[in-house]
């Protein structure tokens, strides 16, 4: 009995760093915000429909990071259009916003962060491409850009259209 408990404890001790390592790697991939964003169609009122390609050594992690990257892309990158798809500018009014509100965005994009409220999967099949030692995963997501903009305006991160008047 004692031996079983000892073996179980040992397995647990060994597993924790392995999970932590994977999580740390995912965080590292996310922190660098290594992704590509493209238009996936004109969304319904209040939303953007985007396809995000994320990179990771694990395909499931990359797929999960796509949501975070989509919100990041809508705030800071914007995306190009074409074929009836309308290009959109980023919600951030100027380039320095991410650095200026670094602490706000660290919390916003943390795993339990607020970003999750503004993005949802569309149900379209994800695309997985193996690129060298890692996977490139493409997922179509819908970003609630109107709600996202309101939240950023309320936090004072971006200026509202009528602010100052």
């Amino acid at each position, binding site marked *: 009995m004692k031996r079983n408990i000892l073996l179980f404890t040992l397995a647990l001790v060994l597993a924790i760093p392995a999970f932590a390592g994977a999580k740390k790697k995912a965080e590292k991939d996310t922190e660098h915000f290594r992704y590509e964003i493209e238009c996936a169609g*004109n969304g*319904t*009122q209040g939303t953007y429909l985007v396809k995000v390609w994320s990179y990771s050594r694990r395909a499931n992690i990359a797929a999960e990071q796509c949501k975070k990257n989509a919100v990041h892309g809508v705030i800071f990158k914007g995306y190009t*259009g074409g*074929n*009836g*798809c*309308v*290009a*959109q*500018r980023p919600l951030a*009014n100027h380039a320095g916003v991410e650095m200026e509100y670094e602490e706000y965005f660290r919390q916003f994009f943390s795993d339990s962060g607020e970003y999750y409220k503004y993005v949802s999967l569309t149900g379209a099949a994800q695309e997985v491409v193996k690129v060298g030692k890692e996977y490139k995963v493409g997922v179509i997501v819908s970003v609630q*850009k*109107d709600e996202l903009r309101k939240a950023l305006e309320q936090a004072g991160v971006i*200026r*509202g*259209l*009528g602010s*100052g*008047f």
Partner: protein
Amino acid sequence: MKKFLFIAALLMMSVAAFSQAKKPTLMVMPSDAWCYQNGYMKSIPDGTGSEKQIPDYEEALRTSMDLKLAIAKINDLMAERGFPLKDLEQQLKLIQQQTAEQNLVTSKSGNEMAESPIDNLLRVAKADIIIELTWDVKEQGPKRTLSYILEGKDSYTGKSIGGSNGTSSPSFSADLTVLLEEAVVAHIDNFNSRLQAYFDDLFANGREVSLEIRIFADNAAGIDLESEVGTDAEELGEVIDGWMATNTVEGRFSKLGSSENYAAYEQVRIPLYKSNGVAMDTEAFARQLRNFLRKEPYNIPCKVLNRGLGKCIIVLGEK
């Protein structure tokens, strides 16, 4: 002491309330090109014996459901962004009502309300920023594509604020109403980013306005812009140029043209607030120039004519 603090707090609050810069008004209108293409034009006498064609907005709003829908959608989306627009249809109705009332109101002794020709001319639907809307549907067999332009124009400087345009992907099934609604929803954010950039520039560099100086013919003061005035016997035009350089933001203005009877200033950057923190508009700026000219050593009587948030005319020589 408490009373004093309370009054001081009240004063500070009222200054803060007045310190908000004046919000420009926006209105969506169909462009002249759209009105022409869709047959919404009417002829009016141009004062020289011939006629000119102008857009017939009333008829367009009465008969085109697509136009009404597009305007309503843009109004809705802009209100969502905290910037409700003036409604063209309501403005036109208001003008009709005002004209009807004007014709009916008389004093007890039977006198009508005073109205100069310029008052009549000014009674048109207007806003500080006009959002011009144009669209065109192209059909290729069963496919339809919608080309769409949304362009903002500063009514008084005549400058384009920017816009958004594009063409939808070909559709076999969607009717015009759906295509139009999709186009408005897809393009409004890009238009709003241009508008935001315009407002940011306004906060950074002051409001851009136009100012005209005119002279009353055979005025009682006997002056024109080449008259030598003041202790230094400077020409009046030079005195006004000097005042403009001192009182505009970083001395920014351009003089478009001048003669002894006329001077036009464009791209005049006026501060958003007066020295006491109250919001400044073109009329307040023009009044400051008027006060400067009618004081010693110039003593020139002037009349300020307001042409909206962005333009004023100062007529010199008489009131």
